């Protein structure tokens, strides 16, 4: 981001400017094309963003360009989720949004609607490790650990979504999480171990 001080505003133009009626029907002949009625707003003003992360509500006033990943790491202070590529290619930033594995680096915080679960929200509230976390430890499913938060979040979604029936199915579902240390065989073993504890295949 070249201009970190700039922070745009959320305009409500979309909600108000509902004047063009586009009903199902034939092509409207030469409807006049006009400029938007509302004046352009200054895109550098902060926007209000409400996020529910691991069950806790957060109200932030942030630059509209802030991704969910940056909002969670630098504004909320949960640094478990990692930034690998920032372009949707590695899976290190995976979070659950509405229970679905999602790339937080390609999500704008201001567009997130559902509840968010990060790696910090996977363990029990008393600190008991989730069966998947325990399985990663038992099976030695990491070396440097940088990809691990994203791997564990994806692995939980893999089992919960019923994608862990076979090693091949696990590998395919986990394909969006790269591991430069190549812990892949151990990750598959960890998911196989945890799926019994999680009560689903």
């Amino acid at each position, binding site marked *: 981001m070249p201009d970190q001080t700039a922070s*745009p505003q959320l305009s409500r133009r*979309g909600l108000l400017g509902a004047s063009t009626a*586009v*009903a199902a029907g034939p092509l409207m002949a030469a*409807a006049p094309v006009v400029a938007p009625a509302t004046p352009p707003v200054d895109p550098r003003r902060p926007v209000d963003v409400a996020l529910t992360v691991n069950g806790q509500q957060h109200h932030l006033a942030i630059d*509209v360009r802030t991704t969910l990943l940056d909002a969670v790491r630098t504004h909320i202070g949960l640094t478990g989720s990692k930034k690998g590529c920032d372009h949707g290619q590695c*899976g290190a930033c*995976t979070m659950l949004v509405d229970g679905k594995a999602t790339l937080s680096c390609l999500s*704008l915080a201001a567009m997130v*609607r559902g509840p968010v679960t990060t790696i910090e929200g996977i363990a029990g509230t008393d600190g008991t490790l989730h069966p998947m976390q325990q399985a990663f430890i038992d099976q030695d499913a990491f070396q440097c650990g940088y990809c691990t938060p994203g791997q564990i979040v994806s692995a939980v979604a893999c089992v919960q979504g019923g994608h862990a029936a076979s090693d091949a199915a696990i590998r395919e579902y986990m394909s969006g999480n790269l591991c430069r240390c190549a812990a892949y065989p151990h990750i598959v073993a960890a998911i196989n171990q945890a799926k019994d504890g999680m009560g689903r295949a």
Partner: protein
Amino acid sequence: MRPFNLDHAATLPAALAAARPVAGARVPPTAAPAQFIAGGTQMLDLMKLDTMQPATLVDINALSAAHGRIEAKSDGLHLGALVRMSEAEAHPDILRDYPVIAQTLQMAASPQIRNMASLGGNVLQRTRCCYFRDPGWAQCNKREPGSGCAALDGVNRKHAVLGVSDQCIAAYSGDFAQALVALGAEVQTAGPNGVRTIAFEKLHTASDNPHTETVLAPGELITGFRVPSGPWTRRSAYVKIRDRESYAYGLATAAVALDIQGGVVREARIGLGAVSYRPWRSHEAEAALRGKPLTEDTANATARAAFAGAKPRQDNAYLIDLGRRTLARALLQASRLEA
């Protein structure tokens, strides 16, 4: 990333109003100041690279209530533009009656991206040509009209051989579009001039004017797709050949659907991707197979017809042979399915 205004459109008219083009401006939709954003998996990627610089993003996700449904009807399959890839790939009607559609989605991107990405955004995905994605390269007719094409004599191992010109040889790398083009789908849109239906085959424009990628007008929104039913949709398959087994764009892909009666191909539908500039329906190949039994020999002859007009550059001549084999394999694979 440059600053922008974010509009949350609650309804279709609100989305169209927010993205309404400026009077008199003559720009292709991809260069319009206001851009729609659905899953954001491509828009944010290209904004971070500074390849796209919208002044306004119009968030259309609230439209999924009206334009996010999958419905199998007697006239075919209706898909809302805001259906997520992961919803369509697992839908029982699609798996049973349109397997080629499910397969193009299952083999695309990663589970996380498919949870996020919409079908409307998917068909509008832009090329992965590295000279296009990186604005550090001065020459790219798609990004800067008239600047030239760095790929013509650059690294072009993954560039297209079909539908190319000396203006642009970029490959269309999406998967789902190959199924739509093969099955003769329609695109439904709403825009500043009303609603219309476009043949999917006509949605993407030719490589002689690479800056313009589709026939859409600025501010025109895809609301959905209709895939007509037909005796070929069940016996359909997608083959995607890539550098690694999963989570990679195709090098050569083929989507095929067959109507076989009494051992003879009555109708073949053939879509090719990754080897072509745009989603590519090979009418030549379809004609070569019509009325014949499907054997290894006729499959190979069909594949030769599909690539008769191929134009390779220095690093991608291998795609002609790979593309032929991919198509032949897809035809033989589909022919073994139950109708």
